């Protein structure tokens, strides 16, 4: 089972290493990890997708909370949150397939952000399923390169993830 954790941390050197080190040494599997600063420059927010049952999730949360620089850990429920990921996909383009690829891009509300004689870069934003669906379709033309940001997520509605440790 996959869980999406929003982890509010102090924006200090080494904090990423502490979090990553904790996962590897305790044997937890990270699916993806995205990190960036928040509206408060002293705080960063990590979105970590972790694989495991309830027991693992409980341990991960508790162990993360033990890190001094971790301020809050929240388990985001998919049905209650907006989840997004961005991907850049470089595909092979045969001249006769160009229109086809552009159509697919359109259907997915993706964008073509770079074009050359042989390739195109497609930028797509969405949840994991959407990006997976697009890559499946594009694979037939030959994906030369792909970069994904990993998931970020936020609770819907007025509820926010605040500073106090939960």
């Amino acid at each position, binding site marked *: 089972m996959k869980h999406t954790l929003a982890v509010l941390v102090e924006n200090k050197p080494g904090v990423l290493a502490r979090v990553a080190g904790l996962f590897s040494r305790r044997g937890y599997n990270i699916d993806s990890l995205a990190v960036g600063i928040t509206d408060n420059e002293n705080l960063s927010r990590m979105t970590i997708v972790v694989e495991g049952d309830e027991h693992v999730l409980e341990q991960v949360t508790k162990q993360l909370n*033990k890190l*001094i620089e971790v301020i809050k850990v929240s388990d985001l429920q998919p049905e209650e949150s907006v989840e997004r990921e961005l991907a850049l996909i470089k595909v092979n383009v045969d001249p006769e397939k160009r229109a086809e690829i552009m159509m697919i891009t359109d259907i997915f509300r993706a964008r073509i952000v770079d074009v050359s004689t042989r390739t195109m870069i497609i930028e797509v934003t969405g949840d994991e399923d959407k990006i997976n669906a697009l890559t499946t379709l594009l694979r037939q033309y030959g994906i030369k390169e792909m970069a994904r940001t990993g998931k970020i997520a936020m609770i819907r509605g007025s509820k926010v993830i605040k500073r106090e440790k939960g």
Partner: protein
Amino acid sequence: MGDIVNGAEALIRSLESEGVEVIFGIPGGAVLPLYDELFDSDIVQILTRHEQAAAHAADGFARATGKVGVCIATSGPGATNLVTGIANAYMDSSPIVAITGQVTVNMIGNDAFQEADITGITMPITKHNYLIKNPRDIPRVVKEAFHIASTGRRGPVLIDLPKDVQTEEFEYHNPGKVNLLGYRPTLKGHPRQIKRAADLIVKSERPVIFAGGGVIASSAHEELRQLAELIPAPVTMTLMGLGAFPASHPLSLGMIGMHGTKYANYAVTESDLLIAVGVRFDDRATGKLESFAPEAKIIHIDIDPAEIGKNVRVDVPIVGDAKLVLKELLKYVKYRARKEWQDKIERWKRKYPLSYSKDDKTLRPQYIVEKVNELVPDAVIATEVGQNQMWTAQYFKFEKPRKLITSGGLGTMGFGFPASIGAKVALPDETVIDIAGDGSFLMNIQELATAVDFEIGVKVFVLNNQFLGMVRQWQELFFNRRYSNVCLRCRRMEFTKIAEAFGGKGIEVTKPGEVEDAIKQALEIDDRPVVVDFKIAREENVFPMVPAGAAINEIIG
């Protein structure tokens, strides 16, 4: 306006304002400014002969007093030599602050001479660590470090201080209050859970209290005794918990686990309610987890939420400081006679006492420990690791907390002797004895020099079986007596001469009849280390014993 000071001075000032009276360490290039500042400081400086020993001594100091122990090392090898000591303190939640020198800030990452990424190395074995790049941070960081080390679940904190940060001048200001957004340990237990716990206790037929090092860390021993007597419930302890409940108390079951008493292991296995306080359900205590306390509901009181539910399922979790939680719990628990249960435990105790074979000729380690106990029941006892440690745990009757100083979680050979030095420095008027194995003692024997130099009257009672005894015992029992690499028969080596050569006192004992006199003789010397070399029966084993992977009631011997 504050005074203009350099980083080194700021660090020493900060240590002084934390009340630090003694530090253990060894200087070197990257801490020269610090040591120069220490030269004029009132802080007592114990120059150890190995940084590992400095860390262990700081740890021993902390365990004996409950105060934070401090050690210092230079960058690179000095810092890496601390690592075992830091890991040891981490595993046993002992509050120490380690200060290391580092290469200059602009050199970090360049593989400079004596550079080691000590904050990276110690990340998994410290509660927290810091690399200070700006001297203005020193007062705040030191304050935070002591706060983190000594509150919540205690543990080691490391501060890495580049050399140029030590020499840079700035205007010193006292740090304000510690403000750590992400660190607010929960001290008070949840009232509803406490009431639920009390309910379960009152309803239980066969309760057992299972106490660990957390009881000692929070000084909850008095509350624990009251609770045990009120319920009433027998009390078993982990190795780290010995002393949390008086061994002579009729409700004491002694130690649980691999080398615990049979009656403790039986009682836990048959109990219907386990009241676990400040324990982490370590495998040495629980044996095979699936068969651990199979009939019991479990109440788990611990200051570290991550320990609750980590190894066993818990019915009533209570996060909080043991002392505060027990105080609350005492308000709701009522006495109820449980005659059948008490009788059963009494029968077990009578039927399966700890025992060993006695005769006039053979010098047995258990007898030595019993004699030490008889002659100095109040002594602070450090141990090494292996059989010596288990015999001490079994046969020394610890009546009070902070009297046993032993490496529980990491099982570090070589810990006991430097730790005993730290304890003796902290408590100069007390008798401090390291009950050692010959193998372990050799791992930090150089500290005899430290003890002689500083006139530290620690005693080392070597239970000398000329074996890596505990390993040999396992080879005997589980590897067909194939004694691979465990024989330490250094025919020409004499611990007494080593002790004397360092400037200490050496005493040799070969017969049971000499034991008492030797101990008394050792006790009379307090201005230098005394090593008593007890030439014990070589193949004596520690029993009873739970084989690895077995359930604790499958205890043999």
